[in-house]
């Protein structure tokens, strides 16, 4: 599904973020990417999202080179990828319902589909009662659940979660990981970056460990090992 082919990335200030990185992520996999700050985790995520282009090599999504996508193709591609961020990135002036509806509207879904799917997905993350709240009226864990609901509402092929538990307490962290595992069990590929050893160990699935822009370990059913 995702294929990194000898990808290197050097930023304008000569910082080498990735150094000839190659790996494949298969459909329905749950992959955790771990590593210290500056190890290259975020650069990998940005490349999958099309926010950054490789300096060398290529990143493929189902045999399509993401770096070569034109603007409108990129828009279509992003509709197939759900994203969850550490800082939630909800739209502050929209209610919980409207935040999720926005992602559906952006994909050209009809009003009928939106009014059917948004309550359903809010039920999955247990936020039905808060659908008319604004983001500032929610706790960190609730915000992250809204972000996950927004990411899954269009039934994407892949969910990318960049440090989704970084700002959360242990209980909320557990909830979020359980939701991500459930999403993966239902057949969606999940790519997770994290610093949290407990999270990685509790998932018990593939772990890619990054060090200095290179892959240090790639363990099937791995553990957090830095």
């Amino acid at each position, binding site marked *: 599904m995702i294929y990194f082919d000898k990808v290197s990335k050097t930023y304008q200030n000569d910082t080498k973020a990735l150094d000839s990185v190659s790996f494949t992520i298969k459909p329905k996999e749950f992959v955790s990417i771990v590593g210290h700050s500056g190890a290259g985790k975020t650069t990998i995520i940005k490349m999958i*999202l099309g*926010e950054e282009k490789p300096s060398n090599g290529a990143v493929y999504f189902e045999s399509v080179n993401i770096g070569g996508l034109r*603007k*409108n193709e990129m*828009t*279509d591609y*992003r*509709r197939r990828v759900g*994203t969850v961020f550490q800082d939630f*990135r*909800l*739209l*502050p*002036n*929209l209610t919980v319902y*409207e935040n999720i509806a*926005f*992602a559906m*509207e*952006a*994909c*050209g879904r*009809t*009003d009928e589909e939106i009014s059917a799917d948004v309550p359903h997905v809010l039920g999955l993350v247990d936020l039905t009662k808060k659908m008319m709240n604004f983001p500032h009226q929610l706790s960190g864990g609730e915000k992250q659940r809204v972000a996950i609901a*927004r990411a899954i509402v*269009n039934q994407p092929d892949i969910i990318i979660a960049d440090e989704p538990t970084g700002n959360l307490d242990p209980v909320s962290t557990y909830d979020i990981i359980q939701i991500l595992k459930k999403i993966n069990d239902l057949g969606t590929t999940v790519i997770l970056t994290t610093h949290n050893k407990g999270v990685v160990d509790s998932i018990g699935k593939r772990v890619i460990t990054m060090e200095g822009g290179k892959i240090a370990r790639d363990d099937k059913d791995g553990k957090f090992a830095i």
Partner: protein
Amino acid sequence: MLRTNIKRVFKSGFLNFWRNGSVSVTAVLIMTMALLVIGSLLLTQALLHSTLDQIKNKVDINVYLVTSAEEDEILALKKQIESQPEVSEVTYSSREQELADFKTRHENDELTLQALDEIGDNPLGASLEIKAKDPSQYEGISTFLENQKKENSESIIDKINYSRNKAAIAALTKIMDASRTLGLAVAIFFAVIAFLISFNTIRLTIYMAREEISVKRLVGASTRYIKGPFVVSGLMYGAVATLLALLLLLPITYWAGPHTLDLGTGVNLFSYYLSDILSIGGMMLISGLFIGALSSYWAVKKYLKI
């Protein structure tokens, strides 16, 4: 789908405007100030033109005719002058009228009136008062009249007072042209400043929403779908600011109206504002919508690069 998308863009724009309370209020207030400047410039231009027209109307050429000139000869000459393209109006004053005016002017001057009585007959000839469409055209009209006098030995023209007023008319023409140019330059200068201030305010509101724009991009929203609501909000800033500026101009012009009349502009600013409120409001609305929409469109573009 297109209709649904347009509906969603407008709804989202209205929501942005309404829910971004303080940001919208700031943008609207600054645009209101900018539009007040534009509205004031429109009114100032109207006052300037009215004042210049008043002055222009006071300038004329007087052609004094010989006392022996017959009425039909005078009317023929009047018709000939009126046919000149530069001439806007010719007023005929008969010998009797000239005498009556002379007596009125010198009603406190016993000696002059006595001398006039002693002459017995009316010594004054009739006159034609000529107004040009533009003060710069008096020279041409004067030349035409001088030629008439020179070419025809039996011409009824006795004297033309242009040469006496030539320097004053030339100076006035220069002052009027300079006033118009300066007025326009000042208006353009302030309009550009007003535009830049509004533009930067809207850019600032969009800068504050840059994270929002990147999130919209990442959830797969198209460029048009992201830009649209911001442009709608920009249009709303313009429309609301125009309404506020028009309302604020009411008490301002009401207060200034009598003063502008006293200054000899010939215009009560309040009456002028009320009678031309549609055209003034229209121009302000177009400016407001243009500034609002264009600023938003450009400002969003910067954050859509990802």
